[in-house]
């Protein structure tokens, strides 16, 4: 019993965190944002079944997410009209998953015939078709407006009506936990292993007797199932679905979140989705060019940290397994690098915001508030000042970053020595 608890401690911890979070952050906005995080975690993990585990780069996975959302909304509306019998709202994500599975099997049959670049292009083709269809089949998709539904429908078991945000949050939380465990378990099955094999060495997998196409197809279908599950939750969360939930933009966002979190590790997409949703919820209000920052960070991730955030953290695994105290030696270099990096980016961001303000035809007046400071954009002094800060920051970075590398190398040497001993 104890052993069982110990083995599953990470899931129990995750469940506990999901349970407690709304008690800590109890504002309506926070609960809504955390609900969205849960949805995006499921979606990102589903996406990573393709990108990380199957080596398939899709630019259109929101299609299955969005279609499931549309079907869910229609399902609720039909229920409230009394056209069909009653189906518990809390089980609707399962229905959404089946919708995703259906389209995943159907479209996957065509698109998984090829891997690599061609697969990526087909996924792009399907997402474009999906967006165009949303404006042709108006009755079903209702074009730009999308469709709405009231999730408060049917009988109320134990007083659960899903009228309030907190109830929907817990619904998302439960499904998120189930989906996480299920997807983690999938990676441990022979199918999960075959998926990795087809990613790494398709020829060899074929030689052993597997159809690479069928393995990809299966991975695609299962991934679409979980994407559909997330899509149904999304529809329940917002009580609305529009073409943007099935389009290129969301597909790109989930790709960015998954990759920046780290596609190589199961934790990566979870970290990525949570961080991405938080930043989007907070930053997109603060800056109108937040996509520029996002894109730049994405490019930097590919160039300098292709294993993502999870990869960066797990790089330290050999250190803390050898001796946790060794990590202490990295605190000072990391702190220095972080501070100088903040100075540099602070200056650069200020400059970008000023350019954006001056170039934007909708901005009023000539005074812009950056970091709470009112800045006169017509004067050259703030340009000079922020440019100076940026340069100083970059210069300091060139001092602190080698310091990090030196310390890192020294610690890795110690680790190797102790391992050999």
């Amino acid at each position: 019993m104890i052993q069982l608890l110990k083995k599953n401690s990470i899931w129990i911890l995750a469940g506990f965190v999901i349970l407690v979070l709304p008690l800590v952050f109890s504002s309506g906005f926070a609960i809504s944002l955390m609900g969205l995080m849960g949805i995006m975690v499921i979606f990102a993990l589903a996406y990573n079944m393709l990108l990380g585990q199957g080596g398939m780069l899709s630019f259109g996975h929101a299609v299955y997410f969005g279609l499931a959302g549309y079907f869910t909304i229609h399902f609720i509306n039909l229920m409230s009209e009394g056209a069909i019998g009653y189906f518990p709202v809390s089980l609707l994500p399962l229905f959404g998953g089946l919708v995703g599975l259906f389209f995943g099997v159907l479209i996957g049959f065509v698109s998984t015939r090829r891997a690599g670049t061609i697969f990526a292009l087909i996924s792009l083709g399907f997402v474009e078709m999906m967006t165009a269809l949303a404006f042709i089949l108006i009755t079903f998709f209702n074009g730009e407006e999308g469709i709405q539904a009231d999730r408060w429908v049917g009988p109320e078991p134990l007083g659960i009506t899903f009228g309030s945000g907190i109830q929907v949050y817990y619904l998302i939380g439960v499904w998120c936990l189930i989906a996480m465990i299920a997807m983690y378990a999938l990676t441990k099955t022979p199918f999960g292993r075959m998926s990795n094999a087809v990613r790494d060495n398709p020829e060899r997998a074929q030689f052993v007797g597997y159809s690479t196409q069928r393995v990809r197809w299966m991975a695609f279908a299962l991934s679409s199932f979980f994407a559909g599950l997330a899509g149904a939750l999304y529809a329940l969360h917002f009580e609305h679905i529009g073409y943007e939930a099935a389009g290129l933009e969301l597909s790109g966002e989930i790709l960015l979140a998954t990759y920046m979190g780290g596609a190589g590790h199961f934790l990566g997409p979870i970290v990525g989705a949570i961080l991405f949703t938080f930043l989007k919820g907070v930053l997109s209000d603060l800056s109108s060019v937040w996509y520029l920052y996002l894109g730049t960070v994405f490019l930097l991730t590919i160039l300098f940290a292709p294993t993502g955030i999870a990869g960066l953290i797990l790089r330290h695994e050999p250190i803390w397994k050898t001796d946790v105290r060794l990590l202490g030696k990295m605190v000072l270099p990391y702190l220095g690098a972080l501070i100088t990096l903040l100075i540099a980016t602070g200056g650069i961001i200020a400059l970008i915001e000023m350019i954006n303000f001056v170039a934007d035809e909708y901005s009023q007046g000539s005074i812009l508030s950056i970091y709470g400071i009112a800045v006169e954009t017509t004067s050259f002094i703030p340009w000079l000042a922020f440019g100076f800060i940026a340069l100083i920051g970059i210069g300091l970075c060139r001092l602190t970053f080698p310091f990090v590398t030196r310390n890192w190398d020294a610690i890795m040497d110690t680790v190797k020595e102790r391992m050999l001993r």
Partner: protein
Amino acid sequence: MNALIFSIFNGTLYGLLLFMISSGLTLIFSMMGVLNLAHSSLFMLGAYFAYSISTVVGFWPALIFAPLIVGVIGALIERYGLRRVHKYGHVAELLFTFGLFYVFEDLVQMVWGKVPLPYKIPESLNFALFTWMGLEYSAYRVFMVLISLGIMVALYWLIARTRVGLIIQGSLTHPHMVAALGHNVPRVFMMTFGFGSALAAVAGVLGGNVLGTEPAMAAQLGPIIFVVIVIGGLGSLGGAVIASLAIGILTNMAISYDISFKTFFVALGVSPDAVGVGQDLIATTSGSIAPILPYLLLVLMLIFRPRGLFGTRDA
């Protein structure tokens, strides 16, 4: 008949523009195995630079300098971006160009604003060149056709008949052999990338004032040029010509004829006075499905002939 000729003319024009963009893309792909997802952003940059330059010194210098600038940007992307990412594999390369696409779109919005630019046809070419069968043919559009045809011929000549073309072709198939003969293959790659980007920019300069110069133009055209090079066969210039023209003419005809699919759907069993989705299907016209025609072609092509029209190998 008039409408047919006119839509073929416009379709050819659009197709030639598509070819100019996709030829660079397909060259780069067959050389480095990288599909540059930001290729349409370079087309967009071409149009924006052309606008800025033409407001200062006029259209003709813009036709020269905008592609040059974009060519240099392209070469820099290859040298300092893709070459570094190369060691992480093709997915990372694809992702890198995908990230560039985002960055370019926002940079353009930041510098030139979110609204479409008033990039106009040059005054010297803004007249009806001739009238044929009651329809006027604008001098600028005829000029566009001539330039595109000129570039097509020049490109063929360059690749097939010159020493430079020989080295490029050699680098495609036998990079190690070409390097052993003393050529700097990475530099050939960089130059080809720059050249392909410049070609896309020429299309931007010529097409920006007809198709509209706005931040969304890259996102609109991008997927279509990928369709073009997949249908033509990855890496095949001849295939890119045929596929561009086919898609250009097809989408233009679908829009200008605007055939209703009512009889078709009725024959399929949708009742003429259907409600709901049936009603939408009855109301569908070829004009309304024109935007998805390229993608339908793509899917059909991948089902029946995955290597594309002239592809030599399965992609």
